[in-house]
């Protein structure tokens, strides 16, 4: 028991701390060569204010770090939701119909690798007449970029439904809607959630690019603003926060995903 506990401490506390230490050393090493980059202590002093008052709002581009993060997460959440709403049915169609796959798979494969930086201007053009073009363009960019893992994983999941389950539906002569809700969707859920998790990761990647382009308040906009102001400590702070949030979101999604995997 205690041996196991010791191993756990080693695996989950000591070794990760060792990794962090190495990272810090590398950081300090780079700082000693160049003057541009603040060392960890300097960085902390400069960004203290944003951490100690995480929800403060002193100005449009001068807010607490969690306030910025919250703004970004809210935008990502909206774009992500749109991605799921469009992506899941699209994945189902792709998985169910060969005709549909043959028709639309090529165009999907071509659109999939397009960078968020390329979608954003298109979004601005598309939503030019809307009350808030930059907001809708951001939403558009996030959902278009984040949609693909959901689409493709759902399609794979539908194709991977065991023939046995389909036979059960046939033998019981279940109606179309019953087949969908009682057989197809539950059988595809594990794949769908893998797609959802990957999509969320991409949505979070895209937000920074989108906010940088438009300079919106949010973690990405703040980062770009700090860079323009020459405040590199805050750039590093933003990078760390973006990483931590991305990691947390991914963990949360894998918890949900794991729930469905056991079924």
């Amino acid at each position, binding site marked *: 028991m205690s041996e196991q506990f010791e191993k756990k401490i080693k695996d989950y506390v000591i070794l990760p701390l060792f990794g962090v230490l190495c990272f810090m050393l590398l950081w300090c090493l780079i700082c000693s060569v160049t003057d541009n980059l603040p060392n960890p202590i300097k960085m902390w002093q400069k960004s203290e204010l944003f951490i100690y008052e995480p929800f403060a709002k002193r100005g449009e581009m001068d807010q607490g770090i969690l306030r910025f993060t919250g703004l970004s997460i809210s935008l990502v959440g909206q774009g992500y939701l749109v991605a799921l709403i469009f992506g899941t049915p699209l994945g189902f169609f792709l998985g169910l119909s060969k005709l549909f796959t043959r028709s639309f798979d090529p165009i999907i494969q071509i659109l999939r690798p397009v960078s968020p930086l390329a979608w954003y201007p298109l979004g601005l053009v598309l939503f030019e007449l809307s009350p808030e073009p930059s907001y809708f363009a951001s939403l558009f960019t996030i959902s278009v970029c984040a949609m693909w893992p959901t689409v493709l994983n759902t399609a794979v999941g539908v194709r991977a439904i065991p023939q046995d389950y389909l*036979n*059960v539906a046939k033998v019981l*002569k*279940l109606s179309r809607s019953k087949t969908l809700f009682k057989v197809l969707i539950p059988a595809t859920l594990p794949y769908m959630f893998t797609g959802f998790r990957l999509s969320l990761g991409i949505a979070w990647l895209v937000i920074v690019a989108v906010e940088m382009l438009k300079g919106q308040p949010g973690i990405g906009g703040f980062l770009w603003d700090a860079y323009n102001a020459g405040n590199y400590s805050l750039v590093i702070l933003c990078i760390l926060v973006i990483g931590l949030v991305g990691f947390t979101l991914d963990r949360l999604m894998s918890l949900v995903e794991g729930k469905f995997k056991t*079924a």
Partner: protein
Amino acid sequence: MKPYLEISKLNKIYPTPKGPAVIVKDFDLTIGKGEFITLIGHSGCGKSTVLSIVAGLSDLTTGAVVLAGREVNAAGPDRGVVFQAPCLLPWFTAYQNVMLGVEQVFFTASPEERHQIVEYYLHVVGLGDSMQKYPSELSGGMRQRVGIARAFALSPKMLLLDEPFGMLDSLTRYELQQVLIDLWKKDQKTALMVTHDVDEAIFLSDRIVMMSDGPEAEVGDIVRVPFARPRDRREIMEMPEYYELREYLIEFLNERSHDRPSKMNPRPAFRDPEPIWSKINEIQKITA
């Protein structure tokens, strides 16, 4: 014997790049109401193909399947199918798995009546205490019990069983054979089962249909099982006829299944004295 299920001149042909592959050739079989028929043959001989065509899960190329006066051309709950793997939906409990079909078939019944049907059949197969368990919490034998309950609960015209006990250990297999035969007796069902277990075929069936090896699988021979019901496994195993019949079936599987029946001698070398069931069989063939 009034025919209940008629399979006539059934052919299953797959087109392949090298020309059509005949899987099942001119398969004829007539089953009376309440009969228990078993198809035996080597794996891959096409016996499961015949079953899945009768189930409506696979299309026939030529020929016809008529069940209770109606041609079969699609799957439907009038035929209860027990698959080799229990095929339970893992996101539903045992109860919900059975209920799914019951809702479909007894859509005019009240929820209370449906509940009673599901509960009754799960009780009969011995799962009274495990109704709310998920398939992952059940053993292989218990899952197949749910599969059997699901098939019977639909109150089908006919039961189709595709090697239902093939994946179970022999003790569980014996138990489930008993569960099956009791339910079959009680509900007066007509059953068509596929197996490669000779003892299982003898214990359960009224008649055993031997299929020759595929491709171009066809009916090799049909024997009637002479034991009165209800059968006691140990009792029938002590009868001399049991071993004669068993030998005959195994000999068929080992030797004759490779021959084309059309090219076979009308009655192959058969040990003396000729067992009674082959005579019955002869008579039946003539009268049929």
